[in-house]
């Protein structure tokens, strides 16, 4: 026995070659069933750790892929949820507007604000109704809450609305309680005010409605509320600060009131007067 070990150690290369070659030949000479059994045993014992590692790697890869897919799904669902909420709100607003249009004696053309003036204070907006819908210049525009402005330019399928926030747009209004008339105006698009006569009966909280005197807006459209009265030394006028009823920054749907200006019937006379000047 010692002789064999000594032989193996002294002829290590040869004996190793012999052992491995004999092992290979034994495997080769075994039957197919035996080969399958040996292969199975070797695969399980030798390759199992590698297989396990690769399986785990594949699993982690799958988890990553699933994670990414789920994230995409969450993003998609969030968008859908936001859309649903938005649709629901729009539905509410439209239902409210529908109610208003039923109460109103004029024909109201619903419109959507498609473009807003990108300046700090948006002074004009474009709505998606135009000449093809029967819209004409100077038609009043209102929201569900109150008066918003007037049409100043009409195109085929859209119109430009001059909002109340435009300093050039002055609107004749009156106090709902006392029927005191004044001109609602603004200088910067933020602060609205009315210069009333000094002795006019105006109080904080009074509601303002359109007077119908300007010729453009019909009488009685809600315009705003008096928030502050500035008593000054001016013996003739007193200034009333007004909070407009419409939030011009969040205006999405509006109505165009389908009515011609009240001075349209006298337009020819007005024009002849203008020419005579």
């Amino acid at each position, binding site marked *: 026995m010692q002789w064999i070990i000594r032989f193996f150690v002294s002829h290590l*290369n040869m004996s190793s070659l012999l052992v491995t070659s004999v*092992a290979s030949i034994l495997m080769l000479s075994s039957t197919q069933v035996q*080969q399958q059994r040996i292969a199975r045993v070797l695969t399980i014992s030798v390759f199992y750790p590698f297989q396990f590692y690769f399986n785990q790697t594949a699993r982690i890869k799958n988890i990553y892929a699933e994670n990414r897919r789920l994230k995409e799904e969450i993003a998609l669902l969030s968008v859908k949820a936001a859309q649903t909420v938005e649709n629901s709100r729009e539905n509410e607003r439209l239902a409210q507007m529908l109610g208003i249009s039923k109460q109103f004696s004029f024909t109201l053309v619903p419109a959507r604000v498609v473009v807003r003036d990108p300046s700090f204070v948006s002074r004009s907006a474009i709505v998606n109704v135009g000449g093809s819908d029967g819209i004409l210049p100077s038609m009043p525009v209102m929201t569900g809450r109150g008066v918003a402005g007037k049409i100043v330019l009409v195109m085929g399928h859209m119109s430009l609305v001059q909002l109340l926030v435009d300093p050039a747009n002055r609107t004749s209004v009156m106090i709902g309680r006392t029927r005191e008339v004044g001109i609602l105006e603004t200088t910067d698009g933020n602060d609205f005010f009315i210069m009333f006569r000094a002795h006019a009966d105006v109080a904080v909280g009074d509601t303002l409605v359109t007077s119908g005197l300007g010729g453009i807006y019909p009488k009685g459209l809600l315009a705003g509320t008096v928030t502050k009265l500035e008593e000054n030394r001016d013996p003739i006028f007193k200034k009333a600060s007004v909070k407009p009823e419409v939030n011009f920054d969040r205006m999405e749907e509006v109505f165009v009131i389908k009515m011609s200006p009240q001075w349209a019937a006298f337009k020819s006379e007005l024009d002849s007067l203008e020419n005579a000047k």
Partner: protein
Amino acid sequence: MMSDVAKWVIAFMVSLILQTSFVPVISIAGVKPDLLIVVLFFFSIKYGVLPGIFVGFVLGLGQDLYSPSLLGQNAFAKTITGAFIGLFNERMMRTDPLVKNVLLLMVFIVHDAIFLIVQVVTIGDPVSTVFSGLFFHTLPRALYSIAVAALFYVWEMLPKPTVRR
């Protein structure tokens, strides 16, 4: 020493993975380089006969288990091949790339000859398949593998960053 072992284990594993995944993509007219033999060649020529025998045996056995062939056929062929390469151990003789390439060609012939002879003996293929196989299969494969191995020499010749002490 440990880092050397790890390096070679990684080299064999990478070559095994590439052999089954990447090599079929770069085959030219059905001729594919044998990365396992190339890596076994570089290993055995560096470490000698004994490591060559054992690594050749393990590699061959792994290949037998991995591919549906006769169990022991690759193990036997690669064991003999590993021992053959080990005879030209770099510790005993210094070989330049050209000689190495000639050796690699011989290694392929030895490996495939054993492989085909085993097939003749076990399956009963005609003896002529050994010669036709060596000529039509082994030679193109060996030349392609030598071309791939040449990349290793190019990589060895590239300037390496020096470490200042």
